[in-house]
């Protein structure tokens, strides 16, 4: 139970999408500055990691922007800095150190040289999906620190939430209906063309 509570408190476990939409702040500044922005919480390696991971998880498609195009890494940095308490920030830091060490076994190497294939391999090998058993967790059910898989899944949900609640995605990609003026049940295709609402 302790472990479950700890995860719940961090607040961006799977399911967070549903309970509390999380989005990028206008206060963060201009768009498209993923190279030049200076993080508040993330280290330079963590910034590189989150930036690359975000676009691998949500790449640009013919009709939708990539995660970095809507400033997902900046959102995540500010969110960890301002929303998480110090305990959860420490848990997050420890998880970053662990996962970056897996990605880059030689600590003296430049993380910026890591290839997309290496990131995908990290996810293929270490990020477990629903129904798969997390050996690292089974080995220590009460451990307060996140397992590699738990952390990668949490980052995935943070990235998704930040993305879906950015102004660009919220107003132009998802179904945006600020003043519906009515409530009724209807056909999904007719109402939104099959998309979710952003609000």
């Amino acid at each position, binding site marked *: 139970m302790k472990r479950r509570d700890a995860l719940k408190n961090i607040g961006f476990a799977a399911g967070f999408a549903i309970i*509390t*939409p*999380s989005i990028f702040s206008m206060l963060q500044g201009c768009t498209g500055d993923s190279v030049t922005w200076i993080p508040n919480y993330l280290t330079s390696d963590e910034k590189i990691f989150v930036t690359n991971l975000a676009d691998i*998880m949500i790449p640009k*498609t013919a009709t939708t922007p990539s995660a970095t195009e809507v400033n997902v890494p900046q959102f995540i940095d500010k969110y960890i800095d*301002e929303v998480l308490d110090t305990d959860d920030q420490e848990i997050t830091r420890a998880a970053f150190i662990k996962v970056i060490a897996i990605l880059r076994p030689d600590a003296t190497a430049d993380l910026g040289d890591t290839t997309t294939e290496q990131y995908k391999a990290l996810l293929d090998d270490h990020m477990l999906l629903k129904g798969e058993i997390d050996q690292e967790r089974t080995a220590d059910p009460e451990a307060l620190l996140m397992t590699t898989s738990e952390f990668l899944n949490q980052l995935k949900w943070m990235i998704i939430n930040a993305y879906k609640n950015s102004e660009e995605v919220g107003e132009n990609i998802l179904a945006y209906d600020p003043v519906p003026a009515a*409530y009724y049940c209807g056909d999904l*295709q007719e109402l939104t063309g099959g998309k979710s609402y*952003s609000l």
Partner: protein
Amino acid sequence: MDKNKVKTEDNQFDAIVVGTGISGGWAAKELCEQGFKTLVLERGRMVKHIDDYPTANLDPWDLPNGGKTTQEIINRKPKQHRTGYTTNPAREHFFVDDVKHPYNEVRRFDWMRGYHVGGRSLMWGRQSYRLSDVDFEANKKDGVAVDWPVRYKEIEPWYDKVEEYIGVSGQNLGLKHFPDQKLLKPMELNCVEEHLQSKISENFDDERVLTIGRTAHITEGTKEGLGRSTCQYRSRCMRGCPYGAYFSSNSSTLPAAEATGNMTLRPNSIVHEVIYDDTTKQATGVRVIDAETKETHIYNAKVVFLCASSIASASILLQSKSERFPNGLGNDSGELGHNIMDHHFHVGATATAEGYDDKYVKGRRPNGIYIPRFRNLGGNTTMKSFKRGYGYQGGASREDASELVAELKYGPKLAEAILKPGEWNVNLLAFGETLPDHNNKMYLDESKKDEWGLPTITFDAAFGENEFEMRKDMQEQAKKMLEAAGYKNVQGYDNGGKAMGLGIHEMGTARMGKDPKTSVLNKHNQIHACKNVYVTDGAFMTSSGCQNPSLTYMAFTARAANHAAKNFKKNA
């Protein structure tokens, strides 16, 4: 407090109303409309309808961190944060700073407060149900606490009056224990809720029925007040509604009082004492500390209405000590501050409804379903393990992320999947009645003062055995109904009952009754031994029912104000 700074105002009023929330707004409106020159005192700042709703039109991306509560907010509002939703940046400005407004807990009590003009009428849940004689007769029938001194017939016309003025939408069902109301057209059930409704009727032979929630929203036409119009289904109610679609003091009753020319509204006015005159055996007025200048003022009136909230009104009375009332004004019975009740909830069941993937909804309905009480109403509804009953709220909605998202790790397929709605979930969330118990109480701590030099409040209350027995059934029946509907993944839950307060329905601290030896107020909400003081917020509740209580506070307030208007002369 520096007595040298006391200022006695020249102004003599006919009436003083303490508080501007659900009850205070109604007292102000009724007294002013009866021609009483009325001073309305509010401890917090001014909030003007629309002008002072700064977040009403903000989208999530317009708020820092997507509207998620920051550590900075939590550090100032740790107790207000206990709900999990009140400290959201979209609405936290309507909830108090716990550091500035501290209270103490022997047993944990989650006291959610809004110190500003309009009080919690701005952030309330808006569900509006009447009590029935099942509730008014309950204490007598069960031999619990004291009998209510009123019955449904006496209060019915006041419910009518309030509903017609504020606008309540919903569906009448013609049930004796769940009285019909003066309702505007109901909001719609969605397709899954309609299915659940039919399955409940088919599968249960007791009184249970599913209906749309009755909520204080205008669903057709307009209502009196400041341009009050129809609900736009944005579901941003707790931020203040620019359409005035749901009832608040700010959009409705206070403008009505203002329009008479009889109201003087004074924000930043902390009432801490009702002044009692032993020669006339009546109250003469109130003592006020200006929240900003910290000067003390005395205002006089023929009648005083305490509408400061159940806890705050009891606190003012406990502070109002005199030779006649050494334990607080009106406290001959020793019941003042006792019998705190709240509704216990956070128990029920959830499930997944399959077969509706091609359905979605237009709009964000600020309302859910309601399953009125179906326990202990006689016949096959009688329960051996607990007294009273509970109702369910909740409903069906689509998740905003599909199951497919959980099965993908990265790439264009994930980018596409995250844009699609997820499965339909159904939630039945029970709200149960709490029995009054003398041991559940609040009192003053004279050794811990706030920044105005006033004693702080200490809570010592908890839910009891009857509530915990009831919770088992609340969970079990929720599961049974969802199973009967054929839904998948039915899961019961019980995440509550640990502490009172989260229902934000605290009540009962100055209960009404027939006997002055066992109650604080009479049937007209007057203090038994000081009849020009009325208490019409949740403090008067003799039992809690399981219904959301604000509508009842409004009806009793309107009735009490008209009683006062008949019994006290204006233009003194």
